[in-house]
């Protein structure tokens, strides 16, 4: 921290650091190791009481697994996202590129400028630039959908017209909740993206809509047909659809970088 170029204020802050009242770190190493050994079915080395780490996440996953077989539509929350399980049949909907429900087609640069969050794009080399970009508002802050055609490793499937779709929208706004309807037979895998809780929703039909502040469904037109990775980061919910595997979806997710300015 010693730096001969520090300003007087910076020197005062550096000096203040030693006086800040931060509690001493607890013995995390043994607690983490015991948790890992317990998860691996090994005997813990010794006894630090496990705190409530991941309690919410664990409950959400447990609830997810239980609710898959529920008779009525029931939801759980993931950040601003809610997963809804509904055993009833849904009418077929056309595929994404023909749907008005994803907004107006625009350019990446215009989308970057128009939304109220940092738009990010995948940097995996196989994808390159998106073929189509859509923006939609509401929700407040906007939603952006990037559509990629067939790419190496991301082939077109018989039931869809794109290789991969990435959607981003603000989802930490309480007035508007996005919801995901999931049919029976969907498999949900708990995973993580850069350490953040994430869900891989695979193996069934599901579609997407959002509610306004009054709870009314205002749009149910966006049909999604690919296996989907969902996670929330910095208040923005992300969905990667159409990746051929969970590993490929995570590779896309963890490659996201802020969209460069086209100026």
């Amino acid at each position, binding site marked *: *921290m010693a730096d001969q170029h520090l300003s007087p*204020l*910076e020197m*005062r*802050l*550096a*000096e*203040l*650091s*030693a*006086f*800040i*009242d*931060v*509690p001493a*770190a*607890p*013995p*995390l*190493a*043994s*607690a*983490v*190791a015991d*948790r*890992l*050994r317990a998860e*691996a079915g*090994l005997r813990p*080395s010794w006894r630090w009481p496990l*705190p*409530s*780490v*991941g309690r919410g996440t664990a409950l959400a996953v447990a609830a997810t697994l239980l609710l898959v077989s529920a008779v009525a539509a029931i939801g759980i929350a993931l*950040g601003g996202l809610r997963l809804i399980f509904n055993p009833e049949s849904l009418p077929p909907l056309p595929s994404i590129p023909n749907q008005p429900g994803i907004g107006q087609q625009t350019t990446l640069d215009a989308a970057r400028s128009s939304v109220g969050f*940092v738009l990010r794009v995948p940097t995996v080399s196989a994808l390159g630039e998106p073929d189509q970009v859509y923006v939609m508002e509401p929700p407040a802050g906007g939603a952006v959908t990037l559509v990629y055609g067939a790419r190496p490793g991301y082939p077109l499937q018989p039931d869809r017209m794109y290789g991969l779709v990435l959607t981003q929208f603000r989802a*930490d706004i309480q007035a508007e909740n996005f919801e995901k309807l999931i049919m029976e037979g969907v498999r949900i895998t708990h995973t*993580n993206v*850069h*350490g*953040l809780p994430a869900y891989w929703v695979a193996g069934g039909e599901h579609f997407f809509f959002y509610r306004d502040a009054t709870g009314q469904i205002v749009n149910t037109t966006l049909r999604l047909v690919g296996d989907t990775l969902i996670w929330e*980061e*910095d*208040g923005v919910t992300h969905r990667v659809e159409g990746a051929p595997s969970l590993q490929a979806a*995570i590779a896309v997710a*963890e490659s996201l970088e*802020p969209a460069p300015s086209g100026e």
Partner: protein
Amino acid sequence: MYGWQEVEGRPLTDAELIEAARGGDVSAYEELVRRYQDLAYRTAFLVVRDAEEARDAAQEGFLSAHRALGRFRVGADFRPWLLRIVANAARNRRRSATRRAALALRAGRDPASGDAAPSPEAALLAAEQRATLMAAINSLREDDQLVIGLRWFAELGEAEMAEVLGRPRGTVKSRLSRAMARLREVLERLEEDLSDG
């Protein structure tokens, strides 16, 4: 249980420990946690401002990082990668927290005990200046407090702050610059008020 700390008289590198942990050796990962638990906890505390939440966030971060070890890029720096995961866990808790405590000064004597003892008057003046600076920091908006805290109280560099905040490095640099300007302004006002009073 500490067999992973040294080989041939030298501590194992992070990369060696990561490789062993990827192979399922929990003791290797335990050593990694031991190396970074203080920094991870301090970073989490600066985000959530609550001792128990910080402990849970740091532990959750370490567990998440362990699950993600298979995707850690070989040769990359473990510390910023880990800090990003811990900070994500802390930010999730910060978002749902009902309140956060203000940063406070440690009670008791000057921790710089190696220095020659200052006169009572000088010690009192220094304490007053620290209290004023602390008050100025706590009067800033939370985003400014966080970026200043990460820089000066967790002693993170710009690249690590960018990882922790999930923002480009340039954005973090400008945010810190603006936060420092606002702090300077508030501090000058407070000190003028004190001298007038």
